[in-house]
């Protein structure tokens, strides 16, 4: 392809670490909400690479409906951060055209439910462009999608879309669970030469943490063990990591020791970390918000039994949402998997004969 701007060799996993703009100043770790951490990552990525463009509905002047893109247009100008007309297919479609010309687009889809109109561009083009050009064209596009439920939102604002993307070859899919992870996963997604769907757990936008923008976290494709335990491995991601950690506290009262794995990256999947844990505990529960049938839990349960059948003391169980449309806000607390649903699964796993 015609590369107008020379791009340094980079990729998601074995790439040089994303450059920190703060290398010359003393280390500091400001306390940020997840929304602020994502905003900081966008700022730093745009400062580090002039090919990075941010666009979408209401991202420039308003700074995003969650203020995640606040200040980008002011800092980098309207050529690099701009509002688009309301058309999600077009938002992804123009990102593809820009990537062909050597840019690094970071489009925003305003809410999970609005990814549906962009499905064709993501699945038919974005995911397949490298393959269809026999490796000639990079698609370093990161699609940010505020995702998942639990915030009392109106219809189409609480969807779990990960299974759609995971069933599409060519995409990487990541979900941060903490502000630090949100910062570094996004920095790494933006330097990836493959398209990344970056799902932001809205419910954790306001969670706070000290974010060290000088110390790159784990790369894409690596899971994190958030709590060490010995009885049951809980595999989850996104907003439910915090749910699993609080359930683990309650489980202790019953004498159950939970190990909590935060996948972070659903594709590529760090199955080694899952396997190592399940070999130790002999029990696994997968937890995600989205409907149970063909959710990521189905894949994980299948994979665990395929590879670890003789290490298992109990069936792999799933604590998930139900196979219904996402419910109205007044009912979502009953629908979403919480500590109780997880602990029921834990109990069933522990009480196997």
């Amino acid at each position, binding site marked *: 392809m015609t590369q107008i701007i020379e791009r340094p060799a980079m990729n998601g996993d074995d790439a040089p670490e994303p450059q920190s703009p703060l290398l010359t100043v003393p280390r500091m770790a400001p306390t940020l909400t997840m929304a602020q951490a994502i905003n900081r990552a966008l700022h730093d990525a745009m400062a580090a690479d002039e090919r990075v463009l941010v666009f979408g509905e209401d991202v420039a002047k308003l700074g995003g409906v969650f203020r995640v893109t606040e200040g980008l247009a002011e800092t980098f100008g309207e050529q690099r951060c701009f509002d688009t007309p309301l*058309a999600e297919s077009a938002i992804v479609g123009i990102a593809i*055209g820009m990537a062909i010309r050597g840019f690094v687009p970071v489009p925003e889809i305003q809410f999970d439910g609005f990814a549906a109109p962009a499905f064709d561009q993501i699945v038919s083009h974005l995911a397949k462009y490298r393959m269809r050009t*026999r490796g000639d064209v990079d698609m370093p596009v990161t699609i940010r999608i505020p995702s998942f439920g639990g915030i009392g939102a109106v219809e189409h604002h609480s969807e779990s879309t990960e299974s759609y993307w995971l069933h599409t070859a060519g995409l990487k899919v990541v979900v941060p669970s903490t502000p630090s992870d949100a910062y570094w996963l996004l920095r790494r997604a933006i330097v990836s030469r493959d398209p990344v769907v970056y799902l932001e757990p809205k419910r954790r936008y306001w969670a706070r943490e000290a974010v060290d923008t000088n110390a790159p976290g784990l790369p894409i494709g690596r899971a994190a063990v958030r709590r060490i335990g010995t009885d049951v491995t809980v595999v989850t991601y996104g907003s439910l990591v915090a749910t699993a950690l609080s359930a683990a506290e309650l489980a202790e009262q019953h004498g159950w020791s939970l190990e909590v794995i935060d996948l972070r990256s659903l594709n590529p999947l760090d*199955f080694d970390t899952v396997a190592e844990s399940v070999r130790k505990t002999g029990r696994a529960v997968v937890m995600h918000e989205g409907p149970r049938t063909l959710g990521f839990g189905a894949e994980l349960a299948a994979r665990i039994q395929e590879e670890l059948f003789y290490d298992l003391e109990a069936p792999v169980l799933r604590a998930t949402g139900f196979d219904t449309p996402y419910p109205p806000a007044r009912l979502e607390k009953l629908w979403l998997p919480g500590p109780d649903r997880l602990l029921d699964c834990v109990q069933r796993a522990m009480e196997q004969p």
Partner: protein
Amino acid sequence: MAEVSAATDVPLAVEMEPVQLVAPDGAATSEDRYTRDLPPETLSWLYELMVVTRDLDGEFTNLQRQGELALFASCRGQEAAQVGATASLRKSDWLFPQYREIGAFLLRGITPAQMGAVWRGKWHGGLGFTERCCAPISIQIGTHGLHAVGAAMGAQRLGEDSVTLAFLGDGATSEGDAHEALNFASVFKAPCVFFVQNNQWAISTPVSHQMAAPSIAHRAIGYGMPGIRVDGNDVLACRAVTAEAAKRAREGGGPTLIEAITYRMGPHTTSDDPTRYRPQEEVDHWLARDPIARYRTYLQSVGVWTERLEERVAAKSMRLRTELRESVVGSDDFDVAEMFDAVYHDITPELVRQREELLAELAKEA
């Protein structure tokens, strides 16, 4: 004078009568807003491209009939539109084709082997197209217009004066993505030319069933961009209106929607049977308006056509047909491992595992 859009300063009217520089009988028309006076070598180059396109197209169909290609979508009858649209552009102006644009591919120097890989079923999209500033073909209808707009917005940001050109069909203009592309291009004043080959049929669906607008070009009014109808079987007219649109785009004037009225003389693809939905009289009507015969007559009238030109063109046709045949017949498939390796820049552990699985399966069979 037509009313002018306050927002974009373009006329809020489209002339129904298509621009035509050479009449179907090969005579120059009275149209004087555009020039026919191109250098003789340009005139004969256009002729060569059209004839070679047709001959190569025929060879593709033959190869499909002989079982060497899985499928083929002929561009027979649309040579003037494709060659004319591409001829005035620079080689650095990106093309975003649908899948039927052999004339444009040839003009860009894409080889028969690179085109043939798709129809042979060797690889998706075409091989090496992007080295010629041409996107891979798009089987998804109308979706690539957005890529053309994005690339044009990229050109704006690179400070280039390049343009992009999207080839759409009449059917594609019904797709939502085509609307979004036209709207975005207009809002962002993207240097983009939408060249619609209205070949009258989207498989079995006629244009009259595709829309109720007066013409495809009329849709431009709603987007605040110029819309222009052109005789798609008149290569000089197609070249002229595209050159005008590209110039306007390069100068920051934004996009243009061109409707080239032409005809798909053959089936939709080699799997189609057009006798089921269109009468022979209609096909005969258009056969009498053949773009190549018309242009040859015109070149004869201006003294550019010679026996020598015809021989030269025939020799080139033969060479490219042979090249296509040799690249296709008995050609090796790609290594099956590539279907895993080309998915990501960094192959995932799961794909490594699955690649090994397949290779082990094949080793067992061997």
